[in-house]
């Protein structure tokens, strides 16, 4: 009796066995298509790395190589010796830490205020923000505004105009609104004001979403180049991405190459690209779930 039961249980739980539930040709096709897609994404990085460590004597004979018998890190040494790269890295790190904190502060307090109910002026502010999602002034008036504010050729032009990102702000707002409202009510009865409730109760409960939004901002700052390109002409304010642009697009590479005989311009360019993306490649697999959670929560409720 007991034996029969044990055999029957797993069957009953499973879906009805049919032709559509077996691992078949359909699954193989899906597997192959996705494998090709994933390969097309990984391959450029692999090729990039191989070329960046290939010495010139091997590269000139065989520029499509997938493997190098001799490894040379001279391209990286050349990149690391270049003060431009370190200057760009310095500016980018300032944006990465300073800019992210600044953006987080304004975006999170705005999101919190808009997540609370029934305060005077809320609808007005909400509509004011929503309008900007569908209509804008365009490049020229924005450019003239930044000039009028005296921001060109300062580091501030890459930080201040990014104070609030509407998408991230709505993400925070939706998250705060999803927390139980009894938290706020009971704290109010105890005499806490809105700022105390926000700092002492809601912020500690929102750490996962704060991490998500913080990561979105951090990536944006690491990739920052647009405002720098528009407004900053001086060399010492260039971000890492702008320096990379210079290295890759200048025909004979703006980086002077003392080892011209031993490594190629391609190797240097690829080493510079690799240097710019390596932090992302190292961290992304572990942080992916935060990004995914952010967009899923934001899109479903927004």
């Amino acid at each position, binding site marked *: 009796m007991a034996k029969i039961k044990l055999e029957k249980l797993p069957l009953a739980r499973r879906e009805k066995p049919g032709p*559509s539930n077996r*691992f078949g040709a359909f699954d193989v096709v899906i597997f192959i298509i996705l494998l090709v897609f994933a390969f097309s994404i990984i391959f450029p990085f692999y090729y*990039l790395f191989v*070329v960046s460590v290939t010495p010139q004597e091997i590269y000139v004979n065989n520029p499509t190589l997938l493997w190098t018998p001799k490894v040379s890190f001279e391209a990286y040494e050349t990149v690391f010796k270049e003060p431009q790269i370190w200057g760009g890295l310095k500016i980018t790190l300032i944006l990465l830490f300073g800019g992210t904190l600044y953006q987080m502060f304004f975006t999170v307090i705005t999101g919190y205020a808009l997540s609370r109910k029934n305060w005077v*002026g809320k609808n007005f502010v909400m509509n004011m923000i929503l309008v900007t999602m569908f209509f804008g002034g*365009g490049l020229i008036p*924005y*450019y003239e505004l930044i000039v009028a504010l005296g921001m060109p050729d300062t580091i501030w032009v890459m930080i201040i105009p990014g104070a609030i990102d509407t998408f991230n702000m709505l993400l925070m707002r939706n998250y705060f609104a999803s927390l139980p409202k009894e938290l706020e009510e009971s704290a109010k009865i105890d005499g806490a004001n809105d700022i105390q409730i926000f700092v002492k109760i809601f912020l500690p409960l929102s750490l996962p979403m704060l991490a998500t939004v913080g990561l979105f901002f951090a990536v944006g700052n690491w990739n920052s180049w647009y405002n720098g390109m528009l407004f900053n002409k001086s060399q010492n304010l260039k971000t890492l991405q702008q320096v990379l642009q210079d290295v*890759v*697009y200048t025909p004979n590479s703006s980086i002077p190459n003392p080892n011209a005989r031993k490594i190629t311009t391609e190797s240097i360019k690829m080493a510079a690209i690799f240097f710019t993306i390596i932090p992302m490649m190292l961290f992304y697999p572990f942080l992916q779930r935060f990004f995914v959670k952010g967009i899923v929560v934001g899109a479903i409720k927004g």
Partner: protein
Amino acid sequence: MEKVLIKQKKSFTYGFKRRLASSRFLIMMIIPAVIFYAVFNYIPMYGILIAFTEYSPTQGIIGSISNRWIGWENFDFIFKYPNFWPAFKNTIIIGSVKIVISFVSAVLVALLINELRMRFFKKFVQITVTFPHFLSWVVVASLFLMMFGQTSGISKLIEQATGQGLRFYGNGKWFLSLIFSADVWKEAGWSSIIYIATMAGISTDLYEAANIDGATRLQKIWHVTLPGIKATAVLLLIMSVGGVLSAGFEQIYNMTSRFNNFLVVDSVEIIDTLIYQGTLGQFDGLSKGESAAIGLFKSLIGFALVIVTDRIAKLCGERGII
């Protein structure tokens, strides 16, 4: 009767004052946002009026609007400007092809990942395909240049195999296909996430019912999964239609090596690059007022497109956004 009215009025103002007092901390928290949006969004929105002026940088936005108003002259000029209509046409083509391609590729990737049965591989694929979204266009354009440029990568491989190089960066048609593939390469995986999440929310009852009816997997995809993501898809499509005239300045700026690739710029010159190049870039040819007129024209069409698509979606029985 009169007494009652007075009492109600008094209690209303009293209530408002009380609400104002109890909202004071939240209002304090929102003030920076109001200032931010007023300065960085609403001043440029007002500043778009310089499209009707002969703009003078020394007089600034307000001075130009009050002293140098010239009506529709800038618009007359840009509609006759020989570079404007080709750029407009390119923008429409690139923008709409991108919307269709990115929509189809995102749904396709989502369906494939959703149907995939190997858990470990699923995780690996998701991490891999979403990664390029987080790279800047500077990096993606550099990668593509290394892969498809003349000196290395795939074009070199083709040259070795066929004896004749394929110049992806030397021909408008090939270059456009490169632009579209770069867009799919960078964004398809990331855009698929939202569809995968929606698919995960479809009730399993529907799939069980389909099983009982003897549906094949393709039939289940067609009759259950796709209708399940229809609302989300329509919403995202409406959102993207407004951006059709934005066709991707950052991508085109970078992939044309900052417009230095003269062989292809004609086929990818879009409204945004025209504005940038004509006023701020290397080919000074437009005044600020004229560029602002192009910008206003673009904003208005984008806004109208959102409203029209929204109405169409509502007529078809979907939930719109406005």
